[in-house]
């Protein structure tokens, strides 16, 4: 059992690190050989051999790093590995992307190279920041807060009323399977071009996941715990506070996390249907039309960063608040 479940590598940590370095060197080498020369692969397909080689080297390095992390007893090392492996994976993909773009001289109007995107990202920070403020700080945040908040409150309100639940849940389920994109033009019609209409789309998108999850969470409390509160003649508020809410926390966080990515997508989609001339959705669709694909991808980068960071922060908060949950304990 023990042997079947743990990673088995014989090599010592030092030789492992050497191998990792070798993998990284192979990676950089291949980039250097072909990187500067647009169209190198089209002219000399031999160089393509480097790509599987590089992927193999990278994979090997990741495997070694993983083994290192799994074996190490120090928490710091484990944490560093947890960061390093996905980073290496991303770097690998980026290098591959860069190599293909330059090596095959892919037109930048089709797919810009990551280097170009990175450059644009930093040189256009100001524009990107304004767009971010418009779309994320206003529409997404407001919509997310209102949507999650109202979903939570409604769940609390109908938790004890089977009648309301029976009536509302089927409707809620149908509503949550409506593709929100369809609602976006209507919201623009109703709430105008500015961020309010985007926030409205976000509210609708986030409301139902929150409602459904919170309700499920409130029903997920241990029967024994409910019985216990019953024997104490605890009232509704006490039952909620002592039993139901803590048990619902993992569900609530689940919805918060899902919603954090949904919200951004919703806001950007809504901007597709009309907006003032600022915002991430506006930027994307406008710059596609202007063939500035580097700017498009820089905006996508901002979206991915914002989404990942908010997801990560929520996950962190979740671990803090649900430290007692078996899944959190297993992970920590």
């Amino acid at each position: 059992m023990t042997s079947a479940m743990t990673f088995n590598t014989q090599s010592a940590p030092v030789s492992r690190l050497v191998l990792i370095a070798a993998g990284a060197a192979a990676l950089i080498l291949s980039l250097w050989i072909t990187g500067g020369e647009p169209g190198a692969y089209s002219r000399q397909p031999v160089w393509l051999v480097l790509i599987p080689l590089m992927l193999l080297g990278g994979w090997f390095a990741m495997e070694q790093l993983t083994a290192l992390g799994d074996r190490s007893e120090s928490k710091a090392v484990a944490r560093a590995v947890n960061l390093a492996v996905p980073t290496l994976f991303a770097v690998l993909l980026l290098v591959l992307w860069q190599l293909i773009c330059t090596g095959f001289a892919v037109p930048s109007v089709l797919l810009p190279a990551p280097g170009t995107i990175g450059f644009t990202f930093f040189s256009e920070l100001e524009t990107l920041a304004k767009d971010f403020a418009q779309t994320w700080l206003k529409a997404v945040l407001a919509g997310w807060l209102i949507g999650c908040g109202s979903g939570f409150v409604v769940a609390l309100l109908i938790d004890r009323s089977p009648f309301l639940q029976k009536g509302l849940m089927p409707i809620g389920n149908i509503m949550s399977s409506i593709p929100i994109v369809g609602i976006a033009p209507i919201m623009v019609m109703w709430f105008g071009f500015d961020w309010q209409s985007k926030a409205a789309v976000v509210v609708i998108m986030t409301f139902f996941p929150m409602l459904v999850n919170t309700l499920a969470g409130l029903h997920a409390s241990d029967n024994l715990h409910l019985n216990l509160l019953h024997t104490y003649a605890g009232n509704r508020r006490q039952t909620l506070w002592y039993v139901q809410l803590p048990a619902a926390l993992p569900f609530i966080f689940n919805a918060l996390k899902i919603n954090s990515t949904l919200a951004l997508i919703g806001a950007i989609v809504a901007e597709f249907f009309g907006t003032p001339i600022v915002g991430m959705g506006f930027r994307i669709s406008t710059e596609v039309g202007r063939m500035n694909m580097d700017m498009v991808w820089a905006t996508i980068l901002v979206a991915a960063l914002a989404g990942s960071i908010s997801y990560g922060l929520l996950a962190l908060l979740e671990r803090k608040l649900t430290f007692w949950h078996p899944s959190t304990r297993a992970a920590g």
Partner: protein
Amino acid sequence: MDMTVNTQPASSPERAKEEARKIIAIEDLSLVFETNDGPVNALSHIDLDIHAGDFVSFIGPSGCGKTTLLRVIADLERQTEGSIQVDGTSPEDARLNRLYGYVFQAPGLFPWRTIAGNCKVPLEIFGMSKEQQQRHVDKYLELVGLGDFHKKFPWQLSGGMQQRASIARALSFEPELLLMDEPFGALDEITRDHLNLELLKIWRETRKTVVFVTHSIPEAVLLSTHIVVMSPRPGRIAKIIKSPLPRERTLEDRESPEFIALAQEVREALANDHRIN
């Protein structure tokens, strides 16, 4: 089946009222669970009186309705027929008056609270002052041998320690009536012996009434003033045995002839209509 308590005839007019207040009075009580497979007769025509200061054990094979009967007393389940009075009122009123403490078969601690925090839950709900809470919790955690574990979380403790914590929680608000559903089932023999003695001591000193579910014949004999032997399908009372043992008991009593005879009586009552499945 029609059986009344044979040792303390509740209906006898000559019983001195002051001697023992009737805490639980059950008359011809039945409970049927409706399930997909059809009705289950969990309890059938139960008659039982329990008086203040009694220590009553329910014993019987799995599925005979011990837990169900305890839950009816605690207003966690309602009978489908017959009547029950707890401390002269309905079980619901008794519950609302916070008359009893219930120890479940499983510890049922909140994983998000420390051991001390768990014991404080009822105290907080009953609106006890902070210092008083602390005093009670300290006292009862000490009693069950968890004095050093205040700040641990339930999942950092063994199953037996968790069960002890749940007992401390039930004791902490000093209810008049203790309802305990196999509280010591998960413990090793020595710890169980120790807690049996502690429970006896608390019972003697505070003159509480205890209703206790167990699978262990020696435990039932050691602790009880009355042993209610139950039998299944439908769940009913097969026999009620009054213990001749004095209130003061020690572990050594288990070797005494009275003890062994009583245990044998219980064993026979149990075996009487037992078949395996």
